[in-house]
């Protein structure tokens, strides 16, 4: 069967199934299980209303449980076992973790991931704030914002190709086609550089790709926050003779600090999971390994589920503080 046809059928079955489920489950609840008639009418209506939320919630809860909650538990289990030939598992305690901690490539991935975690959220938020503030009062500010926001729509793989061209190096005696080397030679560089093969600095060149993508996100949110600042506070500062820098750093920034934190943590999470960029551009060579790619290597190239799951747990542990913080904030807000 042609996949496109299969897709159409899936849409019909999926959508029809969803609607059918909700419709008939409701019907069943109201007419068959607890009919709103007969001697127990009052009790029946109450019971139906107690059950209905769970009817509405069931498909989502089932999918969430199966696709996100169960894997967390299963990954913990896998990270503590070794897969034996023939589909058996053997409990090995922390051996997978010990093996992983003894591997140089893992520590390289850890170091790089920490570097990513420091640089990317800081740079994206910084550039985003700068762009938001600068475009705020411009007549063509919205066009500028659209352009800076645009990379959000571009896939990480597409961005990887885009920046491979930027970083492209050609031999010294022919024309450079990568703009970075072109500018480098123009401003006095001695010879074209293979930017992605210079250890340590190549990490920065990979990070630039993600910063380029995430800045638009930061800008959009911070721009909305800047507009939400009460005008009186700024006007009062002007009357008191504050200069633009003082207004920005002492009046505006403190008022949008909450939003900055949200933006920062959101980008941090995106950064933690960074995979496509490294996978497509260097595949972890030249000391650019990151955790997500290390995990992919272990799971699907080395076929080592134990160590792969252990490295996935490391990513989970790094997300955990943000997870707790988010839940804490959400609960505070609901009260």
């Amino acid at each position, binding site marked *: 069967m042609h996949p496109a046809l299969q*897709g159409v059928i899936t849409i019909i079955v999926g959508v029809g199934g969803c609607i059918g489920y909700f419709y008939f489950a409701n019907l069943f609840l109201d007419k068959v299980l607890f009919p709103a008639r007969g001697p127990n009418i009052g009790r029946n209506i109450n019971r139906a209303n107690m059950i209905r939320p769970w009817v509405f919630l069931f498909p989502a809860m089932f999918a969430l449980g199966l696709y996100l909650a169960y894997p967390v538990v299963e990954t913990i289990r896998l990270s503590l076992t070794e897969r034996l030939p023939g589909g058996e598992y053997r409990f090995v305690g922390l051996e997978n973790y010990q093996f992983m901690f003894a591997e140089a490539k893992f520590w390289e991935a850890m170091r790089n991931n920490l570097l990513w975690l420091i640089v990317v959220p800081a740079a994206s938020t910084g550039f985003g704030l700068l762009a938001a503030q600068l475009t705020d009062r411009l007549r063509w500010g919205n066009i500028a914002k659209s352009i800076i926001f645009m990379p959000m*729509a571009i896939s990480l793989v597409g961005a990887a190709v885009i920046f491979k061209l930027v970083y492209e190096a050609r031999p010294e005696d022919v024309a450079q086609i990568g703009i970075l080397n072109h500018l480098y030679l123009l401003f006095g560089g001695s010879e074209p550089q293979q930017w992605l093969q210079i250890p340590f600095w190549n990490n920065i060149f990979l990070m630039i790709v993600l910063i*380029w993508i995430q800045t638009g996100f930061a800008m959009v949110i911070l721009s909305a926050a800047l507009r939400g600042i009460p005008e009186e506070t700024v006007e009062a500062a002007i009357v008191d003779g504050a200069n633009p820098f003082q207004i920005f750093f002492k009046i505006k920034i403190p008022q949008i600090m909450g939003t900055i934190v949200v933006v920062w943590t959101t980008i941090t999470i995106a950064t933690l999971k960074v995979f*496509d960029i490294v996978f497509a551009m260097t595949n972890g060579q030249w000391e650019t390994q990151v955790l997500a790619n290390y995990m992919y290597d272990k*799971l699907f190239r080395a076929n080592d589920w134990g160590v792969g799951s252990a490295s996935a747990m490391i990513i989970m542990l790094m997300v955990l503080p943000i997870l707790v913080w*988010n839940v804490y904030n959400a609960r505070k807000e609901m009260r």
Partner: protein
Amino acid sequence: MDSIAGQKPAVVWALNISVVVLVLLWIFPTLGLFVSSFRTGDQITASGWWSSMFPAEQVLQIRAADPDDNRVDIGNGRYAVEGNLFGEEGLQGTMNAWGTSSRALGAYEPGETADLGDGETMTLQADGSYVWEGNDDQISGRAQRVFVTATQPPDFTFANYNFVLFDENNSEGMARAFLNTLTVVIPATIIPILVAAFAAYALAWMDFPGRALLIAAVVALLVVPLQLALIPLLSLHNAIGIGKGYLGVWLAHTGFGLPLAIYLLRNYMVGLPRDIIENAKVDGATDFQIFTKIILPLSFPALASFAIFQFLWTWNDLLVALVFLIDASGETTVMTRQIVELLGTRGGDWEILATAAFVSIAVPLVVFFAMQRYLVRGLLAGSVK
């Protein structure tokens, strides 16, 4: 407020210039790829894409017509070959100079006659017509080389797109991958919306024990890295017989998209006016009717926001497709995967790479610019709260 930056022209100029610089920095990388996708491989390697936008001086190496077939006896033991160097299409642009040796590329003006020694001569006009004269020995064997220095206007072609999308002999084409991506994306966008909408309504407007806990769980699941789900779910899919394929990838995308969908929709639905819902209840509407007749239509902006997110995310995804969809046969490859393959096998062929990348980027870009308003609204609802 405007007085901060509004009064001094110097400040306004500095502001404008710095935004221009920022915008250029952000658009240059994409522009480079876009321009490159319209150039031939030779053009890409000959000069940087930034110089292709302007007329450029180029040296073309052309040979005169084969003397053994084309020479004419003009008496006195002399022979001549006449013709036009540029053939029937003519030269794109204008000829500045020409020469007959690689050591003196621009030795002659158009219209001049070059002395090639021992009475052999060559005359070349600006339109490319030439006369090459000499004795029997000279006008034979290999034809005379001519180096033409010409200023050529920008030259772009659609050939790359033709090759990448429509060439049936191209085994690395994007046409199949494009359809596959589309097949993945549409169900993976529509199904989670429906499932999430019901759940969001229950979490927003129905009272039941454990509601707060469930909302907290959704917030927690928002940030769970999907990396954790790869192996457990792949084993599960294998165990229940789905294996690798479209069904698996649709389910996976649905599962991974749900937390954001529920979160966004709940936040939006909670903000809808309570009166409408209570009035409907008083009038005897059931929860199901309230949901389908009131909440769903009113929530359209939030539904659109999430649809765009999910569309962009599934269209651009690589990891989930790699793990849940693409099997050893490679029949079900998606565009992101195809591009990564091309990066490996055709790393230097920028015309192919650039075009393939742009084919995959184009659709999300169109969606982005058409629906930007909803995207921004969704972002604000999803993270500022």
